Each structure stands twice: as structure tokens, then as C-alpha cells.
């Protein structure tokens, strides 16, 4: 195929690229949008004389589809825990052996041997958090550590509830509320889950992102959402509190892994090692406001994060938190049907 405008374009692209050509090496990081601290990148670039290019993605599925298709040119990717096994099984990741890297000693014991990457042979921790309940306590002052807040809402909250538009997070939260385990295919239970969600939905105001503003403006009084947003919402509205549902809540962790067809493998490994150092991990957290799984990083973190109850899970609630697994295709099919029915 010969296209008439190929040449001038190639020339423009060359010029655009040449401006990046001074560093000795290159590194292409494929990460969630608005998730990478520019300071961290500059520091890495200067330490190793590498030019880092960041490209954003907005969901695990689109990142997976892109890398699977091939020809992408990325070196590093940051999948969530419940996708990591897919990446590994599909043969998309390089066994870069972070467990043998110098800085691996800093990784917190809880995250040194996770189910999704046994022995940490592929990935290093980036950030982790939870899916819990955000409540404006000036509207409702009862117990907020329960998913009943949005599934069986108290009168004060009805019509002021938001639910994150994320299929896996919502359905697993509802399953745990009804006593099951995430990724279950127990149809009896799933039927109850569907009925519970369908019954609860009229009490919700919205299923949307961007809730921080609405808690600040007091348009919303409760939401099922991520902890980092709860933290930011509290900064703007001091009545906001974050609850950990005692029935069970989902935990997630995004980890950095090297791609099998990476072109800058050495730099990618350098980056993996780099972000396991406490000082650098603290930079990651300071920007996106989630915990990072590296011991000793707390002392480098911004003061307001050190004792934030949204970020440091209070001891009594730790046990109820479960990392989401990769659900079976059968479970996914059932969840999609429920999700579609919920929003029809």
C-alpha cells in the first residue's frame, strides 16, 4: 500500500523523535493515566541517562488488548493483581526476576509472595488500595463499615449515593455482602446478588467517576469507591469518612512488569529495581495518593498520608480485605449478564 502522504509524515515524525535522542537509552512505560509522578521519572532519567516515554491507558482490558495485538513498542506495563495471571499465562511478560534484585529486600512481606505472582518472578509493587465506602458523616452518622450503605441504604442517604461504574468491583462487593466469595459461580447466590443490586439501584443517584467534587459540593453523601479518592474528598470536606465493609471488601494492587517483547530490557529492569527503593516508592505515593507496598517508604511520604485512615487500613478491618483474583470466563459471563440487566 502506497499512500501519497507517507513521506512528509515520516519526516515530521523523525523530527519529533529526534528531540528525544540525547539520552543514552530509552524506556517506554505503559501506565494508567495520571498515575506516574513526573519527579520520579526525572530522577530515574538523570540517574541512569535514560529517556523515559510514558503512554497512558484507562483500563486493564484495553492495555491487555493492545499488548496482545503486538507491535506496540512498550517495555513496561502496570497490570492490576486480578489481571496479572492472564498476562503471565498468555506469555506476555518477561521473567525479569525482581526477587533477585538488589532492592527486593524493601518489599513488604505481605506483598513479597502474592498469589497473582508467586515469588515475585515477574512484577514489583507499584501501588495498592481498596474499594470501600465513602460517607459524608454530616448526613449519616451511623456505622459506615458495611456495604449496606449502598445495598440497603439508611433513609438519610437514599438518593444521594454514587456507585463506581466498575463491573468487577461492584459485583464482588455485592457478593461479599451476601456472604459469598468474589468470582463465585454459585447461581443461587448470584441470583440474590442480582436482586439485591436491582432493588438497591433506585436509591442511587449516579454511577459515575469524578466524585471528589461532588462530596466537596455536598451533592453526594455516600459512594462505593476507591480509597485514594476518599482521602482527597476528606481534604475538601472534613466530614467525609472512609468505611471498610466488614462483610468483605476488595483490595487491588498494580504491579510493574517487563513485557516479553520489550526492546529496552536492561533499562526496564533498572526501573523495576529503582522503584523498590523506599525513597522512590514514596514519590509514587506522593503523587497518586495510594500506598505502595515498600517498607520504610513512609518516612519519605508527605505528612498528611502517614496516618491517613484511608491509606493505612486500621488493624480491625485488615482481615476483611481480599485481593481480587482473575475470575473464570464462566463467572465473567454471568457477571456481564447481571451488569447489563442492572443498567438496562
Amino acid at each position, binding site marked *: 500500500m502506497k499512500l*501519497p502522504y507517507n513521506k512528509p509524515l515520516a519526516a515530521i515524525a523523525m523530527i519529533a523523535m529526534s528531540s528525544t535522542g540525547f539520552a543514552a537509552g530509552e524506556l517506554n512505560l505503559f501506565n494508567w493515566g495520571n498515575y506516574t509522578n513526573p519527579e520520579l521519572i526525572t530522577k530515574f532519567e538523570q540517574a541512569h541517562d535514560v529517556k523515559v516515554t510514558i503512554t497512558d491507558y484507562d483500563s486493564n*482490558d484495553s492495555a491487555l488488548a493492545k499488548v496482545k495485538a503486538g507491535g506496540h513498542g512498550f517495555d513496561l506495563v502496570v497490570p492490576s493483581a486480578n489481571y496479572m495471571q492472564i498476562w503471565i499465562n498468555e506469555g506476555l511478560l518477561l521473567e525479569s526476576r525482581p526477587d533477585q534484585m538488589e532492592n527486593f529486600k524493601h518489599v513488604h512481606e505481605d506483598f513479597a509472595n502474592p498469589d497473582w505472582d508467586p515469588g515475585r518472578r515477574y512484577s514489583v509493587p507499584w501501588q495498592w488500595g481498596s474499594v470501600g465506602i465513602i460517607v459524608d458523616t454530616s448526613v449519616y452518622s451511623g456505622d459506615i463499615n458495611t456495604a449496606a450503605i449502598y445495598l440497603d441504604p439508611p433513609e438519610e442517604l437514599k438518593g444521594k449515593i454514587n456507585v463506581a461504574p466498575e463491573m468487577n468491583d461492584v459485583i464482588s462487593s455485592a457478593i461479599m455482602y451476601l456472604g459469598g466469595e468474589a468470582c463465585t459461580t454459585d447461581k443461587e447466590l448470584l441470583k440474590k446478588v442480582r436482586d439485591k443490586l436491582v432493588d438497591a439501584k433506585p436509591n442511587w443517584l*449516579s454511577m459515575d467517576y469524578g466524585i471528589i467534587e461532588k462530596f466537596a459540593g455536598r451533592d453526594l453523601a455516600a459512594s462505593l469507591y476507591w480509597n485514594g479518592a476518599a482521602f482527597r474528598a476528606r481534604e475538601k470536606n472534613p466530614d467525609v469518612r472512609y468505611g471498610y465493609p466488614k462483610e468483605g471488601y476488595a483490595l487491588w494492587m498494580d504491579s510493574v512488569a517487563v513485557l516479553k517483547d520489550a526492546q529496552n530490557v536492561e533499562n526496564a529492569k533498572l526501573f523495576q529495581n529503582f522503584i523498590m527503593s523506599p525513597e522512590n516508592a514514596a514519590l509514587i505515593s506522593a503523587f497518586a495518593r495510594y500506598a505502595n507496598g515498600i517498607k520504610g517508604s513512609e518516612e519519605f511520604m508527605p505528612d498528611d498520608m502517614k496516618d491517613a485512615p484511608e491509606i493505612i487500613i486500621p488493624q480491625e478491618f485488615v482481615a476483611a480485605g481480599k485481593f481480587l483474583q482473575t475470575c473464570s470466563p464462566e463467572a465473567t*459471563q454471568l457477571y456481564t449478564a447481571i451488569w447489563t440487566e442492572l443498567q438496562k
Partner: protein
Amino acid sequence: MTTEQYQLSATEVKVQQQQAKRNWLLCTPALIILGVAASGPLLVMFYYSFLTPGNYGGVEFEFSSQGWFKVFFNKDIFTDSVGIADAHLSIFWRSIRLSTMTTLVCLIIGFPTAYFIATRPQKDRNFWLFMVTIPFWTNLLIRTFAIMEVIRNKGIINNVLTSIDIIDAPIQMLYTDAAILVGMTYVYLPLMILPLYASMEKLDFNLIEAGYDLYATRFRVLKQVIIPLVKPGVVAGSILVFIPSLGAFVTPRVLGGGKRMMLGNLIELQFGQGRNWPLGAALSITLLFIVMVALLFYVKNAQKSGLKYD
């Protein structure tokens, strides 16, 4: 068309053939680009709609009619009984209804605006045209957030209304169907105004004057002179608003609260967390089919009216 084919002389046939050749040549660049970046990919998707969904996204290269089956029928996940896929149908219907309303509102607002621009002095028209487009050089999401800012409970409209004592309590406008309609109209308005303007700009006001000379009322002039003359613009604008708004999902989510799915969300779900690419492909081809039937209907009409330029 058949009436056209009665006894043509040899030269006429030759001229006609030459013309057809010229027409094809003129269309070739567009067809090549579209073939590579639109129609070709669509064929891939058509093929995919007959495959088996991969376990974690993508497809297995094994024939399956499940994708198509699921567009229309629904095997109840709990009782295994087969029924019509009412969830899909109600989502289709909601999207079509919303798009129709958006098109109508855009037409009601866009027609007078395009007419206003077209009746400015020649040298001012491009200025007004730019005035219409400039808001749309801002990112869609930012624009949608700006609308949200205007209509939310503590937003501009409610603040103004309460401060001049027209209302006591704020009106809930955000997260209503009306909010979606306002947002969609805002997003798609230039797609209506620009084609309308393009066909109005050349309006022959002598014809309109003739209409008035014959003692026609303004309404009759509008209905019987202006509208027939600018019909191609109305049709083009309506297509440009109606079809893309069928797939819209950002505006319904941000302004409507996202509690109900639109067609765009449904299809996106299949390619994302739902991990059922064949169903997603089949759903989109169904949509394509519906739209195409409507469009072919229009082309037939357009060709009939096109004959008069020969």
C-alpha cells in the same frame, strides 16, 4: 432508474461511460483510505462475530453462532430458559429515542441559527461560522464538565434563580433525562448547523421575494420555498447528528449519572470487562444494519431528486 435506460444513442452511451469513469476516479482516494481504515477493519469484525470468545478477551478461531444468538435472545442465567434479549432491546430503544430527540432539538435550534448566519452580509459569515465552531475546539470531556457546572444543584442556573428569588430550593437538573438531552444537543449542535449553513448560504432570495410578491405568509414561504431548497442540508445535518449520537456514552454518563446503559456502553462492555468480542461485533453490525437501511432509503430519495440536474 429503468426509465432512464430507453434508447440512448452510441455517443450518449460513450459520454455516460466516460462520466462514470471520471466519477470513479474522483472517488478513488476516499475509497482507498476508507478501505484501509474503515471498511477493511469492519470486515475483520464481521468475521470475528462468528468466532468463539477467547477466555480473557480476544477470540478463538473456532466457529460459533453464539455472538449473534445473544444479540436477540437471552438464555436466562438462572433458569436456562431462552427468551428475547429484553435488556438489549431496551438499550437499543433508549438510544434510538434519545438520538431522535437530540436530532430534533438540534434542528429546532440549528435551523434558525444557520439561517441567521446565512443572512449576514457576505464578509461576516465566516466570522459567525467560527463563532459556532470555537466552543468545539475544547475537549469534549471539559465541555461536558462545564455544562455540569452550569446545571448542578449549586451551579450557575440554580444560584441565579435562587438569588433573584424565583425559586426557593434548587431544581434537580443534573442526572435527569433532560440533562442528557441538553448535553447531547450541545455536543452535536455544530454537526447540524454547518451542513445547514452550507446549503442555505446559496439561498436565492429572489425566489423568496417572489413568494412574498405572491402574498404568501412567512410561514408558507418557510415551508414551501426555503425548506425544500435547503433539504439536502437538513438531511445531511440530521444524519450527522443522529448516527453519532447513537453511540454516545460520555455525555449520558457524566450528565445522566450513568445509571442506565446506552448502546455505546453496551458494546464497549463486551470489548472490555465483559470479554465477549464476538457479541460486541455482532451488536455493532446489527446497529450498522439498522442505520444502513435508513440511509439507503434516503439515497433512493436523493437519487430521484438528483435526476433534475442532468
